[in-house]
């Protein structure tokens, strides 16, 4: 009960919010309602006119032509006005719905851009996308249907009732008494079919899971010749799906004929009572004919409204999901007098920094680190040890939970995010490219770069040679997430991106993991040039990088457990020494230089 009440309350809240969005377009709303009223009234008036016309046409020689002509003219005028009103109403509803939807989508997207990364990291992309796309779409459908059908439906019911009452009260009662039966029937069926639909969507989900897994990894399926086995599994689910879909569809589709049957009962009821009334002389034939057509019109909206109500409920549920997103807490806003640092030297100070994603699980505690401009900081440790945590803090993707981080003596929370981030050049392990040309992707950090600068940067990162060989060179269009490029090529592009804007500080996250060692050497040379005089934070895998670092942070299980340079850490004989020794002891000889920690998942 409590639950139901709460659900109702939140539904009401959602409806209110919808109206807030509608507020901007209330002129259209009012206009649309007026037009609906006009349309309905005139649509209902026409049968009355035809009824009158019929009464002018009694029998041979008993036809009043002037009367007939007058009515014909009236019908014609009514029709034209109705049609025009209907079209304008449609246009208004369309405009309103799609503009509200556009506003909601824009707001949702605006929110995505300022959501804390914590939210984005902890919600599957698909889920957020489905809110912005599918939910909004459903909502639009519901809203549009609500406008067009609910309005006119209710108006029709009220209108017909009025017209019928104006013609004959007794027969009107017959209609009013029988009609609700169709409601009851529809409801009865809907309740029964609910479980069938649930079973259907569960089975569908199961099948989609299998499709996702098998088609997604089709190459493996083919390599192992498992096509037939997979198909068998697929068919088994497919068969079950066929059965339960049949049940769900069939039982739910009974609704329509059943309510139509109720309608025909109404029609008959009107027929019999009406005919008797005519025989008694209390009704004319023309009135009966128009009554019959009212009876038809009156029952129709009932069927529609029961559909609209479920549709609207669905739309409101969808709206709630979107509003949840829109109302999500945004990232901590910048202070009003946040500094905009322009000439960053690259002095980074971490004072007593503590951080944890979850309260129970403390990751970084009381970390102190003083980085002078131009120094190199290497972060080492097994994969999954939380090396990216430090990057998250430096770039202010996450805020520290204790202590402070300063760049050139300013707490990073006191400067604009924009100036902080512009100070860093970042290459992440997971390459990300957007749909657009190669050029678009390279100039992200420096939109006004000249063609020469771009080529120069691409040459420096050894991307130029492969870009040149693409069908349209720098203007080659790449699709979602760089689809046709190899992992290594994508990474080269990401490096080029940073090469182009030459920021004072660098963050390199296992940036070279998908590039073969030979190319990597070239890139590292380029990076070495880039790093000269620049503060760099490197999540390192290669021993050479590590040995050259000024400070090495050794991480394990998300915590920084050791700090120092190569020699001092070796002398300490702790985890770093162990890691280092294991590489040499297990490697192919004292020459092994690739420090590749256990289970590093640098593949992919």
């Amino acid at each position, binding site marked *: 009960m409590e639950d139901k009440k709460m659900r109702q309350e939140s539904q009401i809240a959602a409806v209110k919010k919808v109206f807030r969005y509608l507020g901007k377009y209330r002129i259209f709303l009012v206009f649309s309602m007026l037009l609906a009223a006009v349309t309905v009234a005139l649509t209902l008036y026409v049968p009355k006119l035809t009824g009158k016309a*019929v009464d002018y*046409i009694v029998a041979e020689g008993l036809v009043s032509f002037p009367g007939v002509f007058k009515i014909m003219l009236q019908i014609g005028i009514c029709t034209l006005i109705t*049609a025009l009103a209907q079209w304008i109403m449609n246009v208004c509803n369309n405009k309103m719905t799609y503009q509200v939807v556009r506003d909601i989508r824009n707001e949702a997207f605006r929110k995505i851009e300022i959501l804390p990364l914590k939210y*984005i990291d902890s919600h599957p992309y698909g889920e957020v996308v489905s809110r912005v796309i599918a939910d909004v779409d459903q909502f639009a459908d519901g809203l549009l249907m609500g406008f067009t059908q609910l309005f006119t439906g209710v108006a029709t019911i009220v209108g017909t009732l009025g017209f019928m009452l104006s013609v004959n009260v007794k027969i009107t009662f017959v209609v009013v008494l029988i009609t609700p039966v169709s409601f009851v029937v529809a409801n009865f069926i809907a309740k029964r079919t609910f479980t069938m639909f649930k079973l259907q969507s569960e089975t569908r989900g199961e099948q989609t899971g299998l499709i996702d897994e098998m088609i997604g990894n089709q190459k493996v399926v083919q390599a192992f010749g498992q096509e037939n086995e997979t198909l068998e599994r697929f068919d088994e689910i497919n068969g079950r799906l066929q059965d339960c879909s*049949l049940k769900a569809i069939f039982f739910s589709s009974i609704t329509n004929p059943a309510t139509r049957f109720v309608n025909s009962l109404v029609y*008959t009821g009107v027929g019999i009572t009406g005919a008797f009334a005519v*025989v008694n002389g209390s009704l004319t034939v023309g009135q009966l004919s128009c009554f019959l057509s009212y009876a038809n019109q009156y029952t129709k909206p009932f069927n529609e409204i029961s559909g609209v109500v479920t549709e609207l409920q669905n739309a409101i549920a969808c709206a709630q999901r979107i509003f949840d997103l829109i109302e999500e807490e945004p990232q901590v806003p910048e202070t009003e007098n946040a500094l905009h640092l322009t000439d960053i030297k690259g002095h980074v100070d971490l004072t007593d920094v503590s951080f944890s994603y979850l309260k129970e699980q403390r990751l970084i505690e009381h970390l102190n680190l003083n980085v002078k401009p131009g120094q190199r900081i290497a972060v080492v440790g097994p994969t999954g040890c939380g090396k990216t945590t430090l990057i998250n803090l430096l770039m202010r*993707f996450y805020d520290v939970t204790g202590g402070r981080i300063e760049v050139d003596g300013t707490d990073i929370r006191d400067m604009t995010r924009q100036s902080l981030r512009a100070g860093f050049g970042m290459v992440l392990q997971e390459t990300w490219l957007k749909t657009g040309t190669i050029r678009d992707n390279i100039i992200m950090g420096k939109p006004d770069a000249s063609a020469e600068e771009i080529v120069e940067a691409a040459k420096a990162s050894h991307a130029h040679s492969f870009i040149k060989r693409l069908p349209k060179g720098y203007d080659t269009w790449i699709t*979602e997430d760089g689809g046709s490029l190899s992992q290594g090529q994508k990474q080269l592009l990401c490096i080029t991106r940073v090469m182009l804007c030459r920021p004072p500080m660098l963050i390199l996250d296992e940036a070279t993991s998908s590039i073969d060692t030979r190319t990597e050497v070239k890139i590292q040379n380029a990076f070495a040039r880039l790093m000269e005089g620049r503060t760099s934070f490197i999540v390192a895998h290669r021993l050479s990088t590590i040995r050259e670092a000024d400070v090495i942070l050794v991480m394990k299980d998300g915590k920084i457990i050791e700090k120092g340079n190569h020699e001092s850490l070796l002398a300490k004989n702790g985890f770093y020494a162990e890691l280092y020794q294991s590489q040499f002891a297990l490697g*192919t000889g004292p020459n092994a230089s690739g420090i590749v920690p256990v289970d590093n998942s640098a593949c992919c």
Partner: protein
Amino acid sequence: MKKLLIYLKGYKRETILAPLFKLLEASFELLVPLVMAAVIDKGIAGQDRPYIVRMCLVLVTLGIVGLACSITAQYFAAKAATGFSAALRHSLFEHIQNLSFTEMDRVGNSTLITRMTSDVNQVQSGVNLVLRLFLRSPFIVFGAMIMAFTVDVKAALVFVVTIPLLSIVVFGVMLISMPLYRKVQANLDKVLLVTRENLSGSRVVRAFNKEEEERERFEECNQTLTDAQKFVGRISGLMNPLTYILVNGGIIVLIYVGALRVDSGVLTQGQVVALINYMSQILVELVKLANLIITVTKAIACGNRIQNVFEMHSEMEDGLLEAGDVAAEEREAVVFEHVSLTYKEAGAESLSDISFRALRGETIGIIGGTGSGKSSLVNLIPRFYDATKGRILVDGRDVKDYKLEVLRDKIGVVMQKAVLFKGTIAENLRWGKGDATEAELLEALVVSQAKEFVDTKEGGLAFKVEQGGRNLSGGQKQRLTIARALVRKPEILILDDSASALDFATDARLRRAIQEMEDSPTVFIVSQRAASIQYADKIVVLDDGVMAGIGTHQELLESCPTYQEIYYSQFPKEAGADGR
């Protein structure tokens, strides 16, 4: 879309019966105005109350019979539609499974998945609706016309003029709006794309301070979508008002004609009412039809998307050689003869003129830079792609002569990306060989250096792997995929950079264990680590798709500059010792 209709074939009976019963129902509905006319003309005019009651009973009977017919029709329609979609899904799944790697690269997995799921569902509801209603509406429209003819031929001519005009409106609006709906869908795709990109790239977008720009990009796409939606809404919103005008115009003319005919004694009052009723029935049907058109339009668009998948054909022709057809006596397991490969729609060759031979039981190392064609080369052996020039021989026969199944049965492939499926470890390993015994599985685990960690997992072989192998580490997944390939005791084993997540010691132990297997396979090792291929019998060095050298480690170290460069970049100390 049309070609998809063959999947209704198994449901011929239902496909015919469903509309038939629907038409039966409609015919009963068409009789209603006639009965009413009789009530007016005979019952009311003759003051015959029993007659009125009788006729109303007839109406109720018509309603009941109509209900029965309609429910039967719904059943057959549902049966045909679900049967249709099940058959369609089956064929589509089978078809996709047989697409070659070239086609799959071109289309991408994600759209194949949406086509298999939501598109098929849309088509299913489309078929269901068409069977139920699409025939019904034209039938009522024409039925009403025919009934009008039975009432009065001259008055019925009004119908003959109105109906074609109505069809022009209905089909005209439909034809104009259909491509517009497609455009709306395409615009929606763009909005979706930008949203997705900004979620997956949130760090990069923020790192480069691109929030504002991305927002503008989104709003632009969103506005285009809104405009397209409004435009199509305006067009399809014309349908109802236009049909309304036509039908009421028809009624006006009917009244006039009726007045003339009644006046001259040809028609009765009740008959005029019947004629007007028929015209109104047409209007009601058309309104229903208009609401359906969107669903059907969508279904057709989705059907065409599915049809496109069916039209994609694997360009690979299957060979004829059966398993027993090749004597395993050939000394050369794999031979490349002047092989070149150009990927579809690619500008340049990815492999050019590669020739080498691998003897039975040899280990071949393949090394080279990113994009140098290492994976392309090994992908040619199990015929994932076809060479565009030259040929590849396995056991002395061209790979194109083998039946694909037979060829791939000989080969164990471990791909770069370690993919495991939902199910137990044992189930995953049996992908390699369906009837493998537990002993065989354990043996493969020992060789792949995976036994140790599998033993620590709860249930061992029965340990449940989650979808995508989420509950295993990268190195564990790699070792299991190697074990999976080993279970089938392949004649040829291809390791495509598949030990990258293993430390050197494990990697070395793995290679030794493979060497020591009885009937040790011919092994191809693709790697970026010189250490992994150093001890191979032959090393193929690739540089930009061209073979830069072939030979043993020592030979290459002396003669091949590319190899030297790679090797010394990884073993710099040695470079210092004998390089300078």
